């Protein structure tokens, strides 16, 4: 199995009857993903892209054995939709929805954790494993199966980087978009062990951003426990400081959170740092362990 998901992951799409839900259910299916059900309250009995729609997640799980969900539910309803999925026994949720209040995410994260459910996102592109499956919205065209793992806090920038790797003639094992919100269900530190344990991944590209301390935390982990090559890039080096958070935010970080802090930490931990996104593919080629052809 690749990281977190595989061919037999049975995907539920919450909010499948909306525009985004419909488009991406179609794209997931085109990627080869096993989309088994949709759920929208009041729309049970319909079909969207050949997928049966249910009124509740419990009904969808019972009828189809869905074991992962992809949420396109509008922000005001996302919290309850996720909690419904957890109560129905679903253990993996990719939350594409943006603008979910972080207070809602705190509830979602801690409730989910107490029930053993994992969140990817919110406001994230999701997870894709070329040749296997995709839960989320990462464009199908950028992929090529291979042995490079990608973990990123960005959306479009990730597509650009993944595409660059493909254009270099290399491919990806699993690409995981964590989302850039203040509270994310999965951080670099959560995800790195999965890639460490994944026999299909030989190298990891880590795409960070300024703000928070997720990259510093990742560096700490990489230095101690991660044994595959890491190529790291951090966006926002030249961004003006303090445009987002007030004083209290600043002191939580206390000198962390800047691009410099992140890059130094990653470099010190042994990661190969790219200064610009277009440098990544060459670094990947340079550090990707050579294998004899299978």
């Amino acid at each position, binding site marked *: 199995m690749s990281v977190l998901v595989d061919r037999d992951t049975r995907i539920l799409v919450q909010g499948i009857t909306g525009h985004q839900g419909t488009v991406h259910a179609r794209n997931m299916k085109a990627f080869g993903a096993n989309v088994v059900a949709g759920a929208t309250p009041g729309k049970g009995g319909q079909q969207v892209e050949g997928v049966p729609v249910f009124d509740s997640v419990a009904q969808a799980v019972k009828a189809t054995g869905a074991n992962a969900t992809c949420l396109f539910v509008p*922000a*005001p309803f996302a919290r309850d939709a996720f909690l419904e999925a957890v109560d129905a026994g679903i253990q993996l949720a990719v939350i594409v929805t*943006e*603008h*979910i*209040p*972080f*207070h*809602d*995410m*705190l*509830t979602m994260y*801690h*409730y989910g954790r107490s029930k053993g459910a994992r969140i990817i996102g919110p406001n994230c592109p999701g997870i894709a494993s070329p040749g296997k499956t995709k839960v989320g*919205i*990462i*464009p199908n*065209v*950028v992929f090529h199966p291979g042995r490079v793992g990608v973990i*990123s*806090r*960005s*959306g*479009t*920038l*990730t*597509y*650009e980087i993944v*595409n660059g790797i493909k254009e270099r003639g290399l491919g990806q094992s699993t690409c995981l978009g964590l989302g*850039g919100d*203040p*509270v994310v269900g999965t*951080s670099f530190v959560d995800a790195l062990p999965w890639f460490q344990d994944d026999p299909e991944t030989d190298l990891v590209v880590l*795409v960070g*951003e*300024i703000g*928070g*301390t*997720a990259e510093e*935390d990742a560096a700490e982990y990489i230095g101690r426990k991660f044994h595959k090559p890491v190529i790291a*890039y951090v*966006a*926002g*080096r*030249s*961004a*003006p400081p303090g445009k*987002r*958070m*007030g*004083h*209290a*935010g*600043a*002191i*939580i970080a*206390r000198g962390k959170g800047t691009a410099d802090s992140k890059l130094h930490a990653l470099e010190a931990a042994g990661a190969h740092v790219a200064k*610009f*996104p*277009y440098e990544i593919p060459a670094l990947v080629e340079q550090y990707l362990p050579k294998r004899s052809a299978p």
Partner: protein
Amino acid sequence: MVKLAEWRGKEIFRRYGIDLPRGAVVRSPAEVAGALTGAGVPFPCVVKAQVLAGGRGKGGAVRFATNLAEAEDATRAILAMEFKGEKVREVLLEEKLAIARELYLSIALDRSQRLPVVMASAQGGVEIESVEESAIARVSVDPFPGLIGYEKRRLLAALAVSGAVARSVDGLLDQVWKVFVQEDAELVEINPLAIVGDRVVALDAKVIIEDDASFRHPEYADIRDDRTPLEEIAREKEIAFVQLDGNIGVIANGAGLTMATLDVLAEFGGRPGVFLDLGGTDDPRKVTEAFHLMAQAKPAAVFLNIFGGVTRCDTVARGLVDAMQQVPANERFPLVARIRGNNEAEGVAILQKAGVTSLPDLKESVQAVIAAAGGPA
């Protein structure tokens, strides 16, 4: 992010029962006499500019008055100020209390732990950044069950309070916690928090409400004190918009790509001005609107950097061409595009036809826009 002015923060505090100095807000010197009487504010009183920037004390935006004439004069003077670029529209008049000690208290989000964190220090009244780490207590709070006994005792110990004052602070902690949760705050900060006899009084109030929770808080919808007019328009159109002091405009999609573009631009000596992030949109109208916003900011040149993933390059290109045609001749600016990904060939062809070159390489296209804007700084 809705930053509330001090007086608005204190209005919220009052609803939650937090102890405050008696005070009233005025918008002209003529209102001072009535406001002081109405709120029962005695002399000497404090006259404070209601601006969002910090450092009001040092900057002359907080004054004292021992009688009505002085209060009116101070109000007049402060209303005439522009404080760190912000026009002063309101003045808060408050009683001056006999302060025994000044403390610091705040609640914010700790992203790494995914938990709210309460911070307290016995060293209040100064910028918290200047207080050494060891003098600040941090207590992470599980949203279920919320702030509880032993956590509060750790904070009380850090604030070095006991007896009746400790009981006051204990009650205050519950109130501030409720403000943070029930008002969907990003930050609640009281600095200084003053000990006045057995009372603990919030002398200042810094409250930031999370934008994303606005559907639960229509009451904050029309508070936008901290946005420029262009930022306000961008917000309504759901376009992320940042104004810097350079001369090159950038339109990109996605926060990461936008920041990466800025990094490359800065590396080659470009000075970024306005920054627009279209997000994950597919909508040509949004491209058009972004272009109009950009035109109003009068950049020397504009760089459009789009990776079409969910977005289609041809749709973006069509929106762009439409928008260009609507800009009057005298407001036109040089445009460099880099448009890649989904339906790239079609998008590039549409731009070509309208006379815009799309370069595939990020470095080259950045260098081209810097040249168009008059060369590196």
